[in-house]
């Protein structure tokens, strides 16, 4: 079976959902967080893998979505599913001007522009004490408007699983739609796509907005999961980590980045419990993966299937 087959991926996500009901409590909580990161990585893959726009500022929409949802639930008791959706939409709205400025460029310039916007968000959240709580963050976010079951550990896990599955279907459908094929055409040969009457900037902006929407949703789910948001969510190290997850898993495959997120998250978690020097082990491991697994974890999986 092909690891990138959407039926297989959905089955895998469903399996993750079921696991939430059989694993011990702490493992379920860990898995919920890992699945939220999968969604975050999936959103970035649309940019990095499909539009070849290497964003180094994806902490921006993630943090923005988290703060938006947190604010709505704290201030107005907006029901959580609505708050998550609304946070995603507001993030998408923000993505229009930000993206309009970013997609005029490409390559490293795009990476650094996206970084600058995320860091600007960090600065604003950090300084605007009255609204954002500054460096203290916002503790005690309620899971507003959910039934007792949905607000419970298992219920929330189920919610995250369903959203992840829906996001995957959306991303897959987008990539395989006529519009998605235009994105690929623009990526492979911009001049030719332009000659065929496509506006590369508009095409890129559409991917940008979709990617920010999903990242905003992921951030909002994280706010409801942790019930706490702080400026660290915007910090550049978050952008760096999620980008490494995407590349590690294999950019451009949708499922690869999710695998990368799972691998990074669990390996770091287990290593750091094992030794204080987890950074050394993880760093050396990355270097080996890059050298010996050129197409990331997906490449390794597909290689195994062929042999």
């Amino acid at each position, binding site marked *: 079976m092909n690891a990138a087959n959407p039926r297989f991926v959905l089955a895998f996500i469903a399996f993750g959902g079921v696991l939430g009901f059989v694993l011990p409590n702490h493992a379920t909580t860990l898995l919920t967080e890992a699945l939220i990161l999968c969604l975050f990585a999936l959103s970035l893959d649309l940019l990095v893998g499909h539009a070849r726009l290497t964003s180094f500022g994806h902490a921006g929409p993630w943090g923005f979505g988290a703060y938006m949802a947190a604010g709505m639930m704290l201030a107005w008791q907006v029901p959580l599913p609505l708050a998550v959706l609304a946070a995603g939409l507001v993030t998408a709205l923000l993505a229009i001007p930000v993206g309009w400025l970013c997609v005029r*460029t490409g390559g490293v*310039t795009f*990476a650094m*522009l996206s970084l600058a916007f995320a860091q600007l968000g960090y*600065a604003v959240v950090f*300084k605007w004490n009255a609204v954002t709580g500054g460096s203290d963050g916002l503790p005690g976010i309620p899971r507003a408007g959910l039934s007792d079951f949905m607000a419970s550990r298992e219920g929330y896990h189920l919610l995250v699983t369903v959203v992840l599955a829906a996001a995957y279907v959306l991303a897959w459908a987008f990539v395989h739609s006529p519009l998605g094929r235009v994105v690929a055409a623009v990526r492979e040969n911009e001049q030719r796509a332009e000659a065929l009457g496509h506006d590369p900037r508009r095409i890129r902006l559409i991917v940008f907005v979709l990617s920010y929407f999903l990242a905003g949703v992921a951030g909002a789910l994280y706010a409801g999961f942790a019930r706490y948001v702080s400026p660290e969510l915007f910090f550049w190290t978050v952008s760096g980590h999620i980008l490494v997850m995407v590349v590690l898993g294999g950019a451009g495959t949708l499922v690869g980045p999710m695998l990368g997120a799972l691998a990074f998250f669990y390996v770091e978690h287990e290593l750091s419990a094992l030794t204080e020097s987890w950074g050394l082990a993880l*760093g050396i491991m990355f270097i080996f993966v890059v050298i010996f697994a050129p197409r990331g974890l997906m490449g390794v999986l597909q290689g195994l299937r062929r042999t």
Partner: protein
Amino acid sequence: MDPLALFALQLLNALSLSALFFFLAVGLTLIFGIMRVVNFAHGALFMFGAYVGVVAQTLSGSFIFSLVAAPLAAGLLGIAFERSALSRLYAREHSAFLLVTFGLALALTEAIRLIWGADARQAELPVFLAGIIFVMDEPFPVYRLFLIGAGVMCALACWAGLQRTRIGLLLRAASQNAGMTAALGNDVARIRALVFALACALAALGGALAAPLLSASLGLGSNVIIDAFVIVMIGGMGSFIGTAAGSLLLGFAQTFGNFYLPELSLGMTYAVMIAVLVLRPGGLFGRSE
């Protein structure tokens, strides 16, 4: 304080900070210009230089020796890393370098903690650099003047090296077109190893020079890397003049920003970068990609 004295002091403050920024960023731009590698580990190498410098000075008692030892150690580390890891990846995509240098940054930071511990380390300045001079009756540290001088010397040396030597010619050619240079019979592999080592050495020299101001501590690497990226982007990736201009721009923006608009200084660096990149996507002196 006399307004003129205030201005003179701030000018010197900004220049000394710009000099440090230049050491930090020039290696990054060199690596990008010639190798098309975005080096995530550059901050970690800067920090490594600070530690080696402090340790070398403590052992030898000579500050000048520490300025030799730090770049030498980092240069060797750079060659080893380029030969064993980077050199296998030149045919691959950008993202491979990202992951591999990210790995180096993680590993190097932890190695430093294992070798030298979590406590900050520092050494005292030698007597001839520890004094003060008076700028219109206001004291100013001699060491900061030394930094400005070192920055100017380094910039001139780099410029002369690039413009006036055969190696410099090759480097410039390699940055224009690697395939062409190879066809002309030049060993691109050796040039790349040399450039990477040189860039690491420059970062480490900057770290060793910064140590008397900041002391060597574990947060240093992740703290400075973003500044380095900002400078290189503002100046134009791969442009030597641009890096010098970017260092000055950021040095002045931070020094005067901290004075007049401290409330905004956290976000100002990024606002400046956005403004430059939106108006000139290739940076002030760079080619647009």
